[in-house]
């Protein structure tokens, strides 16, 4: 394999994962929280693919494809929730979603 080794891919992956985690923690718009979640899932996928290449084993790719399906399902349900929130005239702000708080 020419080019950088597996460790370089893993470092990029964890950097982008922490950027996504920061987005989930800091942003208030549920849409951007969902986008940041997609970033986290994708950086996890990059680590899976890098390990798959390292061990020359296709199982990592199967894992990555399954994660991709889960990410798509999560986007459908999350966007459905956001549309439902906007129908109920709830503010689109994750800090103000307190109706389930005891």
């Amino acid at each position: 394999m020419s080019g950088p080794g597996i460790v370089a891919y893993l470092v990029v992956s964890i950097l982008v994962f922490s950027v996504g985690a920061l987005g989930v923690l800091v942003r208030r718009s549920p849409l951007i929280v969902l986008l940041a979640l997609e970033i986290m899932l994708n950086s996890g996928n990059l680590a899976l693919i890098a390990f798959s290449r390292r061990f020359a084993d296709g199982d990592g790719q199967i894992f990555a494809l399954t994660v991709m399906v889960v990410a798509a399902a999560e986007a459908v349900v999350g966007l459905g929730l956001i549309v439902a929130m906007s129908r109920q005239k709830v503010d689109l702000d994750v800090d103000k979603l307190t109706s389930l708080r005891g």
Partner: protein
Amino acid sequence: MILASFTDDVGNVLVWAIWVGAAFAFIASGIAVISFGDPFYSALALIVNLASLAVLYLLLESEFVAAAQVLVYAGAVIIMFLFVIAYLGGRADTPWVGGPRFQTVGAVLAAGAIAVEVIVVVTLKAADALGSVHPISASFGSPATVGRLFLSDHLLAFEVTSIVLLVAAIGGVVLGRSVPSEQRAEAE
């Protein structure tokens, strides 16, 4: 002989250049996604993120995953996001920083701690173990190989995946339905 090693060197430099460009675009567009105030620009930045990730997959010789990634994300997920953002109009905008200031500082510290911890562990403890890369056959990452794995060793995962997608589709329909009929009757 000299020419062969020269072309090898040029190829290697080219791979490095593409890798550095893709990795930089991956990180920079990730930061862009979480820093735009308007979700529309965030979704556009996510497209750059996904494209550079597909380039990294290609450099790891996982062609089918790269193609599936572009199809699933650019073709479906991003379109869905853009549709919802357009549907909500300006109501989806939020100013950049949420919560009191100490929360932001804590979040930055937490994210930085995750990154530093894992990078230190990976580079110090695992660099030797991960240094050697197994040789691969030409069909590694091809649709045929991935399909064979899905229908032999990972058949259960394949079937469960389709059930997950079905449940998500039903959930999307239920959530996106207009106001339930009982509620409408009460309102009337």
